[in-house]
Structures are given as structure tokens and as C-alpha cells.
């Protein structure tokens, strides 16, 4: 890492820089970056803007940053609310930090650019269509025929609509996953009831795969591996609860329809 040329920073400027650092870290953590990336990226910003050192403590739902300059410490804490995984934001934040590191952006420009990042989202119907197609592809990979493919598409597309609606109303994600899995299993049990396709129970297995919390699980293990055991445990716990929620929905739907299907 290149050390920037020494410059004089006033007390107010130091406060501003620390605020930018904590905001960078907060946005990364809110949008699903792993802990090492959060720590690395935000401390690089602090060093690029002229601090002597940056110390960061991450917990599951807060970030604490201390910026040191010539023996003067400024510490600040922010509460982190989960805003859903958004790689677009992560990319943009990373770009700003890289530009600041090349000394192309000063403190004000960084602030301006950070505030201008808006969480880009894909069109919801495109997402519904592609997620339906994704689960249908899973059923194909498991060995289902085209009837199974079509049924899986219908079940998981409807489930995705439910998931988006509940997420839009800010319901608890665990509850959301339970309801979504319930709907998916209810629709796909029709395939078993009417014996559609070569292996109708594959519809039930594949249509709930949109609910596997893949990103939190991978982040959890990679936090563990890179030494962030406490955030890793928090992510693992959350991912397990999400799986548990989805499995409850599946079990409830199975008990209701009496179609056991794939378990």
C-alpha cells in the first residue's frame, strides 16, 4: 500500500475523514460485503485521505472506527441495518476508494460521491422471471423432464412474487422465507397430486431452492476462515434461522396437503 505524502490535517478535517471512513464501512456492511472487505476497504480510504492509522471493530450490527492522526484519536460508532445484498453498491464504494487512493478525489469529492450512490435494483418482473427459470434449471439438473421444468418455473415464480411483496413491506426475513416456502410447496404439490412429469417430487425439491441463503452462508465461512469469528457466527446463525424458517414453511405445507414428496 502506498503511503500518501504527509499533510496537515486539522481537528475538523480529521473528524470529517473518520465520518467518511465509517460511512464507507457501514454501506459495505449493510449491503452484504464480507468483514475482511469492509475492514480493508474502509481503512484504505482513511489512509488515503491522510490519517496515520485506522482501527476498525466490526460487530454483527454495528461498526466502530478510530482514526489516529499525530497522537490524536477520534472514534465513532454507527448502527448497521441490513439493507439486503447489493453488489452494485459494493462495486461503487470500492471504485471511490480506489480513486481516493490514487489521490484523484479529496475529502469533499469522496463525501459527494458516497452520498450519490443509490442502491440500484433490477426490475422486479425480470427478477421473478429469471428466478423462476433458475429453479426450473435446477430441476433439469436433478434429472426432471420439461413438464417438471414448467411446473417448477410456475411454482418458484409465484413464490418469488410473494417474497418480493413481503420484503417490500419490511416483514421479518425469517417469516418471509417461511411463507414463501409454504406457497412454493403448496403450488408444487399439485404436480405430485396430478402426477405430472417423470419425477413430480423434483418440482417440490427445486421450487424452494430460491430460498437457500447462499450469500450469508458463504460470507459466514469466509469470515470464519479470515479470522472474523464473531461476525461469522452471527451470519451463520442468521443463515441457519432462514433455512429453519423455509423448512418450517415446507413442513407445514406438506402436513396440510399430505403430499410428502421429496423427504
Amino acid at each position: 500500500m502506498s503511503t500518501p505524502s504527509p499533510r496537515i490535517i486539522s481537528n475538523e478535517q480529521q473528524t470529517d475523514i473518520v465520518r467518511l471512513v465509517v460511512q464507507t464501512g457501514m454501506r459495505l456492511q449493510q449491503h452484504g460485503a464480507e468483514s475482511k472487505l469492509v475492514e480493508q476497504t474502509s481503512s484504505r480510504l482513511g489512509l488515503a485521505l491522510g490519517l496515520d492509522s485506522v482501527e476498525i471493530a466490526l460487530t454483527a450490527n454495528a461498526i466502530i472506527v478510530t482514526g489516529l492522526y499525530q497522537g490524536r484519536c477520534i472514534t465513532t460508532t454507527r448502527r448497521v441495518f441490513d439493507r439486503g445484498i447489493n453488489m452494485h453498491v459494493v462495486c461503487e464504494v470500492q471504485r471511490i476508494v480506489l480513486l481516493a487512493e490514487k489521490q484523484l478525489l479529496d475529502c469533499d469529492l469522496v463525501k459527494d460521491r458516497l452520498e450519490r450512490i443509490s442502491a440500484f435494483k433490477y426490475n422486479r418482473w425480470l427478477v421473478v422471471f429469471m428466478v423462476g427459470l433458475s429453479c426450473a434449471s435446477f430441476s433439469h439438473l436433478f434429472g426432471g423432464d420439461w413438464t417438471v421444468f414448467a411446473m417448477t418455473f410456475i411454482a418458484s415464480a409465484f413464490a418469488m412474487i410473494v417474497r418480493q411483496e413481503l420484503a417490500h413491506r419490511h416483514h421479518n426475513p425469517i417469516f418471509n422465507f417461511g411463507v414463501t416456502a409454504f406457497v412454493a410447496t403448496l403450488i408444487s404439490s399439485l404436480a405430485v397430486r396430478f402426477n405430472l412429469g417423470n419425477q413430480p417430487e423434483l418440482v417440490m425439491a427445486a421450487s424452494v431452492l430460491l430460498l437457500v441463503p447462499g450469500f450469508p452462508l458463504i460470507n459466514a465461512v469466509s469470515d470464519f476462515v479470515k479470522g472474523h469469528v464473531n461476525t461469522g457466527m452471527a451470519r451463520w446463525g442468521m443463515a441457519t434461522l432462514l433455512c429453519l424458517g423455509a423448512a418450517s414453511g415446507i413442513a407445514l405445507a406438506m402436513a396440510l396437503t399430505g403430499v410428502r414428496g421429496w423427504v
Partner: protein
Amino acid sequence: MELFLSLVDDAFFSAIPAIGFALIFNVPKRMLVLCACGGAIAHSLRTLVMHSGVSIEWASLVASVTIGLIGVYWSRRYLVPRPVFTVASVIPMIPGTFAFKTIIGVFTLHDGGYSAEVMASVLENGLATLFILMALSFGLALPSILIYRFRPIV
């Protein structure tokens, strides 16, 4: 030839979920192609390795190490953090069915009382979930554990 065709089929139908989940993660548009390529390479490579008699856990590790290394190249080339495309690429290999089978097995164990068969299936599915997941994320993390130990990739 037959193996080749089945691998092409495999690659195509695992590129779709990689894109689908990349949309859920709001991966920027120009990275979607990379997610698709990554998903196709990873899953078809795993199928190929499993075809030569390797167990699913080790095959997943091979596939995810490959994606992790390709990810280093892409990440340095396009200046974006690696998880942007590596995670979507391994999504088709995430053991979702194993995970749900484990938990529903636990429910069944509680409902119908203890039985050795259900217990065996819970343990087998649970361990498969755990080991495949460990293999996937350890494989992705490998370049930054071994090569980029003290410096960031981008």
C-alpha cells in the same frame, strides 16, 4: 462425445441460476456475463470431476478453487471486489436440497419419534451440507489466504 454433450447441457443450465441469483444480489449489468461464465465453468467442472469418481465435497473444492483463481484475474481486470461474481458463480453448487432435507428430517424425528433410519438421513444430509459449504467458501477464500496475504487483491 456423450459426456461432452451432457457437460454442455450442465454448463448451460447452471449458467441460468448463476444469472438469476446475480439479479437477486443486484450485481451490476456488465458483470452478469462473468457470473454466467463462472456458474457454467464451476458446475460443469464439478460434474466432470465427480464423473471421474471423486466425491462431491472434493469436486466442489476443485471447482471453487478454480473460480476463486479466475476471480482474482477478473477482479484485477475490472477493478471490482471478488465476491461480486464468485458468489453468484458457486450458487448452483450450494447444497440447498441437502440443507432442507436435514432440517425437515429433524422435524420428522421430533414428530414420529426416534428412528435409526431418519437419524441416519439427518446426519448424512447434514454432514454433506456442512462439508460442501466449507469446501465452496474455503475454495473461494484460498487465493486471499495463500497468495494475497498482506495486500488487497484490488
